[in-house]
């Protein structure tokens, strides 16, 4: 079978998330693992890797896409009913079997909430198999918050403990801070660790821009969290998705890895040993 041929898939629903991000529901079920990604094609424009933001337990594949490059800009112009090309899912995904039975701490910054949402949905749907769920989410301001309804609803529920940090204060953030003073604060996402008691027996999932990852990594390690129980995702321009085109290679020297095939999920230990990471800006 030729892995490079995309399948035509219908966009079922488009929902605005922020001024630059939209949620697309696709007419396809892929049985993906949370953390995996797909290659999305718009014929004539090109192909781009996009992480899946829905759990397989919720049916159709959803992707939350920021309008940032050629393909994603073209995608943003499409509405329900339009067709796109899809290949995948690719990548390893989060080791959710390993996390079974333990508490899970989810840390997300900005668009990193997209893959984290897939994990969160999965954990919520399999609540009995996992321990407590904590979500630490860092946003710039309320306008940039993804999945607003879902997050606000969760803040009010017992299914999961949501901690929220924001950089710029606005009306909604202010109200949330007053309502949940012990779980909402102003600052970057690492500030939330002052409010959370970290259980060293837990597993952690971290998604966000590279700079955020390193700060979270340091913070958690300083607080005694074992880095081998921490998982993060990396994003690169995976052009083939199957370990051939080598655009997504990370690491320098003897520890080179493909983000598309060996990742995009890496453990804290793998991240530390890929010395090439020191070049990440």
């Amino acid at each position, binding site marked *: *079978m*030729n*892995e*490079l*041929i*995309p399948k*035509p898939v219908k966009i079922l629903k488009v929902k605005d998330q922020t001024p630059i991000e939209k949620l697309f529901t696709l007419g396809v079920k892929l049985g993906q693992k949370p953390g995996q990604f797909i290659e999305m*094609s*718009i*014929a*004539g*424009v*090109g*192909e*781009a890797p996009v992480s899946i933001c829905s759990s397989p337990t919720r049916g159709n594949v959803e992707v939350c896409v920021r309008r*940032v*490059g*050629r*393909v*994603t800009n073209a995608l943003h112009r499409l509405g329900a009913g339009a*067709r*796109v*090309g899809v290949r995948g899912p690719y990548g390893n995904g989060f080791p959710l079997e390993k996390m079974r039975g333990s508490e899970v701490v989810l840390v997300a910054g900005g668009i990193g909430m997209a893959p984290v949402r897939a994990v969160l949905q999965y954990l919520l749907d399999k609540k009995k198999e996992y321990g407590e769920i904590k979500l630490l989410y860092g946003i710039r301001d309320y306008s940039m918050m993804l999945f607003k309804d879902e997050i606000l609803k969760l803040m009010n529920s017992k299914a999961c403990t949501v901690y929220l940090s924001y950089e710029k204060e606005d009306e909604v953030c202010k109200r949330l801070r007053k309502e949940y003073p012990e779980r909402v604060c102003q600052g970057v996402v690492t500030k939330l660790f002052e409010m959370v008691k970290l259980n060293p027996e837990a597993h952690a999932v971290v998604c966000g821009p590279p700079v955020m990852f390193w700060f979270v990594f340091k913070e958690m390690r300083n607080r005694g969290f074992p880095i081998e129980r921490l998982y993060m995702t990396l*994003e*690169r*321009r995976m*052009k*083939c998705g*199957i*370990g*051939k*085109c*080598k*655009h997504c*290679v*990370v*690491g*320098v*020297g*003897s*520890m*080179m890895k493909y983000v598309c095939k060996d990742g995009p999920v890496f453990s804290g230990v793998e991240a530390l040993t890929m*010395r*090439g990471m020191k*070049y*990440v*800006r």
Partner: protein
Amino acid sequence: MAKADLPKLFRTLAKYGPVVAPVRVGENVVFREVTSLEEVELEYTRSLTPPKKLFLGPQEEILKFDGEKYEEVFEDGKAVLFGVHACDINGLLKLDEIYLDSPQDEYYARRRENVMIVGMSCVPDERCFCTSTGSSYAYGGFDLFLHDIGREYVVRVRTERGYEFTKDGYFKRMEEKDFLAFKKAEEKKVRSIKRKVDLAGIGDLIDVTPKSLWEELTAKCLACGSCNLVCPTCQCYDVLDVLELDIRSGSRIRRWDSCMLKRHALVAGGGNFRPTVVERTANRLSCKVGGEIRCVGCGRCTVYCPAKIDLVEMLERIRVGA
């Protein structure tokens, strides 16, 4: 097999499919289609571009689309790749590890299947260092391999497809003296490869090389990517869509890419994970010799570098650390 019988072998090979062989063009030797043995350069050092181009084209159409309907484009065709050296055959074996790894690349896999390979012993020069990369001899990855032992060729057969071509009367069973001549010729070849490089642990040395040394090593580099274009093991490709005038149909094309070009590690939004030639060189060297040895010691990147950057010298300086 007597050398005088080579035209006979060539004629039977040509029945399998078009023959692609080394041809002298000006100062360079290039692989291109030939119709007679006279055109073929039997004794050459290295071709400008490696025979990789037959399996992974410099630019090739992979899909046609009409709206969001995609169809595979593949030109089926048998061919004979004649006169390939051991280093380049080893280069193909290294590409096999990538392109035939699951899920395999169908285009590459089918061409690998369709193209018959006839190896040929080489004429090393002072830039060759294949004995340091373990690629001075091809154990597999070919159908037939012709070893020049003077007036005759020792022919190694690796596949049933290759065996079919050795049934004619001019192939003789090897005798003791032929084994000796083969051994002598191989010894002579190996001894003539004077250039050596110690690659043990070089990956970690690349990793700990200070920025100041990298800057010195790459000061002359033009970041032109010539080293990638001539490398028999470079695997990177780029993908682009080309639209027809009806703005709904078109083709998806892939072409060789180069990790030395600025845009290789560029991501949407403008972030670049290897912004300068320092990171890009560290990446290229890591890819070639950092972990598994993916260099075959052909010397092309050094010979064809317009800035005259020498790979082996660079690796030696990385080992010394100054």
